[in-house]
């Protein structure tokens, strides 16, 4: 009896401390992010609610991210637990094969948990789910209500959406706008902006290993761009330039691509006095994605479970999602928060609803745009193709007489140069 009692006590002594240790075990997570405000706020918020988790943050510019990450990998140390991927290098990052597949144990993210486009955007070529979206970017067109009333006759989002329900209609409407305004108001800003709109829709799995079918995927894009450009429907305000930033307030452009983040950083920042003068409508045919950051877990991390807890709380379905939305307007890619009864996304007015003439923007983004938006599956060569597209569209900017065939040829040459081993159609 005594022996059994002692054995029992010893067993208990071993189990109980172990149980309490795992509950209070100190974990240190490392996250690299370029968005200092979001990073600092959300990690501090999380640490307050989880005192046993210490998060070390590092601000790394998106342009340096890939290089720093690869250097850390090569040197064998210092790789962060939570990794962020921007659209520009996402395919490459996924292809490195050092990120956890979140559809597997113990994460078990199911396809129906997220919006379709969020799932494909975070997937590799064989269906592995490498990342969840930091915030989803289903996008439509933002427009100035005064310009719309003058040149389209209405500023109602639904009516405008009907007027431009496909790209041919948009083309005709655009020509009328140019005539009426004498060229002072263009339909879109520069070539590079239209390029970003067009390449993020009508997605297909056009990259199969080293075989890249550019023709089927991008011929339509090039044709639309040249058509619009040669008809004078595009302005000269290129992506990222000060000219683009100034055009919002100056009323030189009718439609701007608008993702949820564009509300604050595109329109709000650049036209601070324009409250009430803006509206959001959907793009022709289907929605498109515009920008986006993917959040992943490093396979070599020693704190994968803790990392997953953080990601769930802040980016998936936890309380952090509400916090991020309230502070930064970030919208999660998971459906559950929107489907809740009295979801805070829809019951409370968003930060920019008044700016956009009282539209319920969150509702519009999710229920009108997101359902038609598709996401491009990420493969190893996707990043290089995007680089080539940027290069070619810059060429088209400098050379407005370029035809669609010439643009496609230039694209094929660029991609071949960047990926010597590829077979290109």
């Amino acid at each position, binding site marked *: 009896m005594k022996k059994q009692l002692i054995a029992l006590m010893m067993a208990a002594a071993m189990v109980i401390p172990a149980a309490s240790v795992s509950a209070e075990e100190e974990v240190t997570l490392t996250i690299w992010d370029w968005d*200092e405000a979001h990073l600092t706020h959300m990690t501090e918020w999380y640490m307050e609610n989880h005192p046993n988790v210490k998060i070390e943050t590092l*601000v*790394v510019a*998106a342009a*340096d991210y890939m290089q720093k990450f690869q*250097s850390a990998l090569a040197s064998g140390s210092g790789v962060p637990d939570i990794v962020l991927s921007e659209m520009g290098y996402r395919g490459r990052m996924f292809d490195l094969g050092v990120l956890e597949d979140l559809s597997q144990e113990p994460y078990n993210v199911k396809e129906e948990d997220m919006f379709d486009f969020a799932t494909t955007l975070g997937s590799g070529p064989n269906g592995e789910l490498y990342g969840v979206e930091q915030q989803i970017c289903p996008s439509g067109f933002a427009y100035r209500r005064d310009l719309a009333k003058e040149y389209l006759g209405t500023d109602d989002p639904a009516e405008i959406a009907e007027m431009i329900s496909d790209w041919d209609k948009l083309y005709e409407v655009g020509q009328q706008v140019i005539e009426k305004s004498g060229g002072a108001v263009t339909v879109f800003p520069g070539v590079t902006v239209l390029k970003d709109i067009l390449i993020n829709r009508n997605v297909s799995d056009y990259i199969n290993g080293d075989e890249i079918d550019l023709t089927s995927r991008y011929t339509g894009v090039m044709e639309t761009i040249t058509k619009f450009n040669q008809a004078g429907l595009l302005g000269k305000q290129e992506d990222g330039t000060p000219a683009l930033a*100034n055009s919002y307030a100056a009323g030189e452009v009718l439609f701007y691509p608008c993702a949820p983040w564009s509300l*604050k950083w595109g329109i709000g*920042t*650049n036209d601070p006095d324009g409250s009430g003068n803006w509206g959001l409508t959907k793009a022709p045919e289907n929605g498109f994605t515009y920008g986006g950051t993917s959040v992943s877990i490093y396979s070599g991390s020693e704190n994968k479970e803790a990392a997953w807890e953080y990601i769930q709380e802040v980016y998936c379905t936890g309380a952090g999602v509400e916090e991020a939305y309230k502070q930064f307007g970030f919208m999660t890619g998971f459906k559950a928060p929107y489907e809740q009864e009295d979801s805070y996304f829809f019951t409370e007015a968003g930060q920019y609803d008044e700016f956009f003439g009282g539209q319920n923007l969150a509702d519009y983004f999710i229920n009108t745009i997101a359902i038609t938006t598709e996401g491009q599956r990420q493969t190893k060569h996707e990043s290089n193709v995007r680089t080539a597209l940027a290069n070619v569209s810059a060429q088209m900017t400098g050379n407005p007489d370029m035809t669609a065939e010439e643009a496609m040829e230039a694209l094929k040459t660029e991609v071949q140069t960047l990926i010597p081993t590829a077979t290109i159609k």
Partner: protein
Amino acid sequence: MNKKLQKKTGAALKQLVLIVLTLIMFFPLYIVFIMSTYYSEDIFKGMPILPANYFLENLKMVLSKGFLQAFANSLIVSVASVVVSVAVCTSIGFGLSKYNFKAKKAIFAFVIAVMMIPNQVSMIGYMIEMRSLGLLTTLLPLIFTWAAYPLGAFLMVQFFSDSVPDELLESARIDGCSEPGIFLKIAAPCIKPGISTLAVLVFLGSWNNYTLPVILINKQELFTIPLMVNSLSNAFRSDYGAIMCALGLSVLPMIILFSLCSKTFIKGISAGAVKG
């Protein structure tokens, strides 16, 4: 009379050329300072030539993102790099220029040869080495990278050759001075302009270095200024007003340092001024 007039117009012309040149050189930095007084979006609305009134806000933003810490880090690294680099490079500069010995040609060729290897090559290997030495959590790797600065060694060789007459050293030897004594007390003081030039070059190289710190530094507290500036941008917008404010502030010490060092040039000139 004619000669005097010639001289005067010559001098005036010279001043004119210098003024134009200096304005062109100064313009970009002037823009940096001007922009630091603007609200970021306003910068692109026109052509900012005159200062605006947003400086205090920009300053507040910059300080709140850890500028002072980054400044201190940059200062520590750069000053230490200068000390180490000057000590090492003057030493080998002296050895190679004022002595004849068997290995002289070989070592000199070696110095020149390694100058030709692009430094980016060694980044990964250096990182691996620093990791195995356990130094990646410190600022030391940023300092050690300047210890054996081939250009610095080459520069010192040239300065010693050009400016330290052998006779000076011989007479010191005859007087019984030891070799290190000659080095420290006689030869080195002769090339003070050269040393201060080297100091400025190393300080600047270290202060403005971006690529190496990006790869090596993994702790926010150890950020140098070029890295800290990244925190002023987020995913969608770069706060150019604040960025220029931070960069303008970071340039100030260099301006001070260079102005101080240029005193040494002036001293040298008054000692042996060109007349006529």
